[in-house]
């Protein structure tokens, strides 16, 4: 009995750890998308943040300095995205793709130039990492709890505050917001910056929390899984959180099922489980599991009339 309990406990704990960057990223992406700015660049922001977190932590010796650097790095890319999409009314998907490619290249280029370890940062030890809090045996560090808190926070901001109401309006019908005398651009910039904040924390979690250092492409598509979770949650905070947990659980299960034969099923290909988040989201998008309706103005640059 005790064994079963500890198995479930450890499984839940590991699901939560795997889901943390997804949750943070998804909450960030939610702000952006609710405000009408599509963010394909979550992956790139998270990767850049992960790199600067590990680089700063290893140079200064403080994990917290790393977290701050991660947020600054992600905010820089978020501002770039805002500049391209809001101020210059560029294509939001193109801007996101550019940010992803830029981050994939720049992290390795800078990493190699600064640390000469083939794109990796030196391994982080002691205070250079975020250590588990409260339940050391479960291994949850402070950012895991931050991710848990980010969900009610996001829900409350979007559903219950004046800013949230305006944010939703700017994502559905910016013309109305403009007519009400509010700045569409400033609202959207705030949405994009909130997105950068959360993506930065997610990146920091990857390199100074979950792992001990940065390695190239360490986000491995998690930004896109977070994007899938937003869609899967139909652009709402709690369902998106649920989707992140499901995707996290799939990942935790995939690791455990490697090479295991299930009765009646045979060996389940790990790749199938890894592809599940994408396949499930495709099914949802195809309208087989309810309907996912994006904010109406998402992806459309707002042009002020004269």
């Amino acid at each position, binding site marked *: 009995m005790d064994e079963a309990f500890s198995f479930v406990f450890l499984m839940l704990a590991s699901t939560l750890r795997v889901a943390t960057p997804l949750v943070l990223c998804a909450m960030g992406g939610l702000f952006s998308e609710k405000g009408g700015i599509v963010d394909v660049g979550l992956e790139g922001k998270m990767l850049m943040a992960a790199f600067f977190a590990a680089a700063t932590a290893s140079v200064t010796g403080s994990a917290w300095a790393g977290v701050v650097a991660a947020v600054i790095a992600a905010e820089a890319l978020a501002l770039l995205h805002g500049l391209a999409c809001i101020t*210059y009314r560029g294509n939001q998907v193109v801007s996101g793709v550019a940010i992803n490619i830029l981050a*994939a290249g720049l992290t390795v280029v800078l990493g*190699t130039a600064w640390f000469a370890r083939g794109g990796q940062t030196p391994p982080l030890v002691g205070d250079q990492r975020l250590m588990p809090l409260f339940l050391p045996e479960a291994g949850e560090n402070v950012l895991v709890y931050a991710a848990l808190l980010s969900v009610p926070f996001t829900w409350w901001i979007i559903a219950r505050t004046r800013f949230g109401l305006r944010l939703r309006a700017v994502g559905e019908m910016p013309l109305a917001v403009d007519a009400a005398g509010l700045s569409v651009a400033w609202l959207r910039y705030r949405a994009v910056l909130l997105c950068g904040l959360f993506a930065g924390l997610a990146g920091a979690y990857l390199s100074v929390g979950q792992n001990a250092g940065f390695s190239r492409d360490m986000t491995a598509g998690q930004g*896109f899984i977070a994007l899938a979770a937003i869609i899967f949650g139909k652009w709402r905070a709690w369902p998106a959180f649920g989707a992140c947990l499901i995707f996290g659980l799939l990942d935790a299960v995939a690791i455990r099922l490697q090479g295991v034969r299930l009765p009646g099923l045979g060996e389940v290909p790990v790749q199938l489980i890894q592809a599940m988040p994408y396949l499930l989201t*495709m099914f949802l998008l195809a309208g087989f599991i309810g309907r996912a309706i994006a904010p109406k103005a998402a992806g459309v640059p707002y042009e002020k009339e*004269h």
Partner: protein
Amino acid sequence: MSAPRRSLPAWAEVVLLPLVNIALAFIVVGVIVAIIGVDPFHALRLLVTGALGSWESIGYTLYYATNFTFTGLAVAVAFHAGLFNIGGEGQAYLGGLGCGLAVLALDRWLPAWLMIPIAIAAAALFGAAWAAVPAWLQAWRGSHIVITTIMFNFVASALMVYLMVNVLIAPGSMTPQSRGFLPSGELPAIPGLPLNLSLALALACCVGVWVFLWHTPWGYALRTMGHNPEAAVYAGTNLRRMTMLAMCLSGALAGFVGVNELMGVHHRIVLDFQAGYGFAGIAVALMGRNHPLGVLLAALLFGALQQGGAELAFEIPSITREMVVVIQGLIILFSGALAHLPRPWLQLLFARRAS
């Protein structure tokens, strides 16, 4: 900032603005190189000689340019239909699987002159099929093609890893790769270089895309749909079928990357042969203003960057090959998302000259 977009003279729109965009990208690259502690002009010189300094390097440049032409055309065709295909990566991957399977199945029996066209057709078919699913979802179920093509890149990658590790791996091999192709499944190549017959295929695709888009009724309907779907419906175009056509064509073009890489160079199915070309295709199409000739020129530039970047990384250890990826990212940023950034400056310039 919110000044209406006045038009520039046509030549400035087509030639000057793109050149200014690329110049901006390269200025930022220069700053990054300087931050690393390398003289940017020295790096540029190494890059240019690395890409064009010898027959061998020119051969490599053209080989890389072949891939970029395929993926650039793929993105451009979809763009003309008003569709954004960022699934080139997955379609190229599946295209390689298609031509690889055809060769593995038939190279024992068929001579090269029969084997090669069949394998090329298989690459096109598999690439098109992989694009057809997101296209179908967009046309009939209304799900957004950007999201579905992204998702399909990851599904393609998982599928290929599964197939290579569990099914297609050569017996006794430690690395996930298939058995080698027999000579009938290899494209004629220049000895000692990766440059092969695919270059001719790429050129043929450029001409084909140009003829299709501007000189056939389907191409006309496709471009109409991209400009104004309502007008296209009014003119009798079936938008759903046209979406399928545009995406399948796009996927088939991306699939040809597999022909160049597997039949031209690796001569077996390997993993990750397509890495990065699909995404770079977006940059190529943006730079080439979605015109086949522009795509070809942009692909040559990207090929030169790829080859020159490799040489640069070889000469200067503190610069890695990924510098090329940074340049690609910046080009997408400046000639795509921030394309209108220099427009006010140019307008000011032209207005001052006119007065």
